[in-house]
């Protein structure tokens, strides 16, 4: 198999999926930046790429543009990085090339926060490597010392080994301990003590005591324990960092929707691409098919179908013409429009939604993770114990040296290795299990929040239903009639046309196609003119035979042939009713919030088996419903897909979105369902509940371990060897417990 076969199909060559319109790319010139190397850099966000064929197509396509020096596509993040020497390449051509290959592309401005996050991840990985290296090598010396304990090793050899251990441990701990030392210092500075305070104290105290022992030629050093402690804790930190994912990015994604650039008509009549945030009320803006409205405004010229999903969540487009008010974030579908801006970007609808999303995320940030709750109880106890054993031994007449050594042993042995690993180890396993079942989990604490829910709110269009019109009478339409219709439909962006084009698959397009917004498409096929559209416009009015409602759906009219009626419906997802029943059987309350009209909302709810229905809801009403429930103490899971759902997704305790959903909703949600079915929701709830039990079990293990180890440490029975064994065994037990299968407890 070769993926490099010249593949003319646009978009992903192996998996298909939605394809971007040709040339539908904003001009990214405003996002080009000149870096220290003297080259111009551009970051683009590419969507729809999923395989080697995509990487190859995109990189080859961009490299073929004259002037481009490097082009690197990152499949994990969807970011395309391109650079060129100043003036030698046109950024507009680069963006258009990607769009022409069939991928959605938008300019991308990596925020400071995200760059910081990536850097921090790398730093944790480095710290982990350094502490792992040091722990392994120090352990070689420690094991030799313990093995020679019975007298085979002479004192000066032992001291040499201690010095070598110190040589490795000191710089390694100084480097790898930074994440803990910094956080502990920052926390103490604010007058609080977090988990990192006892950790830092234990490491520093252990190293100090050990160094002193080494200098006086003593027998007990804790270099191995101190560094191993850092290593285990860093594993937990790194897993946690990886799990945290991109929860903070939702609002940014929504902002980037604010059509990064817009075509503004200058006073001299020329059109220039400008950054959307530079638009002021009164500007004249040209909207081509595929463009998103950058700000609220009024139509000056033109008639076109516009996708209003942002306000209503419904995909059926609306016909707009001169004088009509239009909000920011709508997509122009069929024909050129000229609009006058009536607000700046900050005052537009999209900005308001962004603020709502941010507010929701801040509220959710107040959730306290299980591990943090455990730490809050843990920190004071540990400090008190260590201090008490220090004072106790002093009172009992032991020297300061012995008292400090015991206090250090208490701090080391109680140190929260197991606690630090308990939650992330379970969560990363659970996230992996869910990924196999088609649920993408974006943060570890989302699982904890999901395990606690008691109420589920569902959106209708696109969530319970497929969200796209589907041809329901496909059986009554012959293949060549469908192909005939598809030849016209392929030229149009209207959802009904897309439904026909998707069903027929890729193929030829009729010649001389012309789309009349709100009515239909016409064109010539083999010299015969053909129309696809509304009944009266296509000329099918007189021909209704089936007596059915002929005003909806599309009619295909070919001269000399009987008109054919295409009927569409938005159908429920196959397992919607099953999922609702599953939620109810798990004791959860289920409610539907729809932006749609009463009749279709009630019909869908009835079919899915939901009693509580709200309809005709605006994004603000949805969010206030979520907030009311949360205020009443309910734990709410929100499942939605539309742009209008993004704020309520962010406001709910935990939220899910679908792979077909708007980008901003996917970004705002904690989890994304990858397939077309809803039953993974049940799997996610079951696994999250199992994971919660498993985490609590792990805390139990850690507690039992401490109950046994602490008295030993306080009364001075702990040697460096016992500390090392106890610490690693508790971490290993916790990790093995996390790896145990969750699955036997799942109901499917």
């Amino acid at each position: 198999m070769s993926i490099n076969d010249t593949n003319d199909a646009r978009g992903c060559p192996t998996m298909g999926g939605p394809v971007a319109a040709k040339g539908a790319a904003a001009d990214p010139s405003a996002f080009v930046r000149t870096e220290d190397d003297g080259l111009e850099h551009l970051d683009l966000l590419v969507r729809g790429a999923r395989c080697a064929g995509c990487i190859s197509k995109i990189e080859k396509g961009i490299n073929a543009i004259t002037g481009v020096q490097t082009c690197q596509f990152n499949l994990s993040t969807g970011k395309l990085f391109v650079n060129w020497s100043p003036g030698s390449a046109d950024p507009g051509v680069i963006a258009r090339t990607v769009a022409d290959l069939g991928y959605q592309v938008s300019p991308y401005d990596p925020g400071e926060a995200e760059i910081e996050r990536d850097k921090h991840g790398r730093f944790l990985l480095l710290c982990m490597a350094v502490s792992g290296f040091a722990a392994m090598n120090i352990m070689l010396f420690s094991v030799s010392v313990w093995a020679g304990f019975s007298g085979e090793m002479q004192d000066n050899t032992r001291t040499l080994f201690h010095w070598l251990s110190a040589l490795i441990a000191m710089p390694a701990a100084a480097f790898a301990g930074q994440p803990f030392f910094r956080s502990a210092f920052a926390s103490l500075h604010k007058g609080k003590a977090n988990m990192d305070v006892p950790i830092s104290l234990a490491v520093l105290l252990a190293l100090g005591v050990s160094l002193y022992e080494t200098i006086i030629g003593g027998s007990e050093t804790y270099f191995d324990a101190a560094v191993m402690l850092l290593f285990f804790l860093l594993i937990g930190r790194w897993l946690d960092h990886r799990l945290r994912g991109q929860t903070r990015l939702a609002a940014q994604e929504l902002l980037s929707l604010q059509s990064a650039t817009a075509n503004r008509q200058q006073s001299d009549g020329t059109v220039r691409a400008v950054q959307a945030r530079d638009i002021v009320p009164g500007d004249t803006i040209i909207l081509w098919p595929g463009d998103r409205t950058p700000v609220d405004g009024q139509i000056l010229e033109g008639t076109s179908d516009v996708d209003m999903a942002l306000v209503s969540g419904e995909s059926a487009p609306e016909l707009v013409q001169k004088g009509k008010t239009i909000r920011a974030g709508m997509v122009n579908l069929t024909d050129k429009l000229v609009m006058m801006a009536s607000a700046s970007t900050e005052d537009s609808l999209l900005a308001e939604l962004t603020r709502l999303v941010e507010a929701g995320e801040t509220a959710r940030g107040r959730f306290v993770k299980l591990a943090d709750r455990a730490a809050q109880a843990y920190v004071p106890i540990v400090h008190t114990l260590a201090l008490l054993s220090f004072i106790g031994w002093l009172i009992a007449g032991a020297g300061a040296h012995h008292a400090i050594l015991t206090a250090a042993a208490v701090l080391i042995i109680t140190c929260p290795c197991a606690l630090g690993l308990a939650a992330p180890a379970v969560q990363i396993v659970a996230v992996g299990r869910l990924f196999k079942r088609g649920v993408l989990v974006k943060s570890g604490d989302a699982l904890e929040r999901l395990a606690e829910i008691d109420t589920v709110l569902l959106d209708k269009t696109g969530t319970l239903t497929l969200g796209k019109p589907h041809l329901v009478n496909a059986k009554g339409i012959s293949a060549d009639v469908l192909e005939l219709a598809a030849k016209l439909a392929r030229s149009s962006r209207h959802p009904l046309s897309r439904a026909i084009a998707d069903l027929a698959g890729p193929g030829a397009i009729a010649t001389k196609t012309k789309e009349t917004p709100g009515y239909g498409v016409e064109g010539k096929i083999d010299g015969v003119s053909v129309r696809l559209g509304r009944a009266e416009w296509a000329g099918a009015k007189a021909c209704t035979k089936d007596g059915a409602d002929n005003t909806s759906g599309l009619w295909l009219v070919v001269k000399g042939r009987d008109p054919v009626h295409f009927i569409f419906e938005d159908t429920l997802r196959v397992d919607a009713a099953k999922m609702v029943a599953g939620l109810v059987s798990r004791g959860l309350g289920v409610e539907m919030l729809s932006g749609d009209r009463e009749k279709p909302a009630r019909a869908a709810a009835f079919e899915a088996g939901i009693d509580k229905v709200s309809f005709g809801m605006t994004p603000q009403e949805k969010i206030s419903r979520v907030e009311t429930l949360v205020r009443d103490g309910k734990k709410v899971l929100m499942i939605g897909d539309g742009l209008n759902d993004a704020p309520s997704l962010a406001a709910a305790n935990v939220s899910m979105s679908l792979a077909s959903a708007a980008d901003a909703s996917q970004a705002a949600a904690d989890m994304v369902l990858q397939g077309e079915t809803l039953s993974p929701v049940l799997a996610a709830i079951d696994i999250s509940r199992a994971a919660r039990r498993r985490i609590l079990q792990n805390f139990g293990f850690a507690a039992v371990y401490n109950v046994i180890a602490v008295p030993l440490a306080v009364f001075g029975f702990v040697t460096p060897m016992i500390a090392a064994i106890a610490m690693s065994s508790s971490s290993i037990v916790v990790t093995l417990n996390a790896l145990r299968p969750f699955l036997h407890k799942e109901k499917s």
Partner: protein
Amino acid sequence: MTALIYLIPAALFLALLGLGAFIWTVKSGQYDDMEGAKWRIFIDDYRDDNIPD
């Protein structure tokens, strides 16, 4: 026991070599695109330096 005089430095040197290699992989961004790496092996004419043909 005199063997320790060169065995210990040798062991430490080898371990440092491993650590150095790991640090290099992190710094050169080899963990940045875990998803893409597994797919890139299917691209017949892919070269690391991305020089266009």
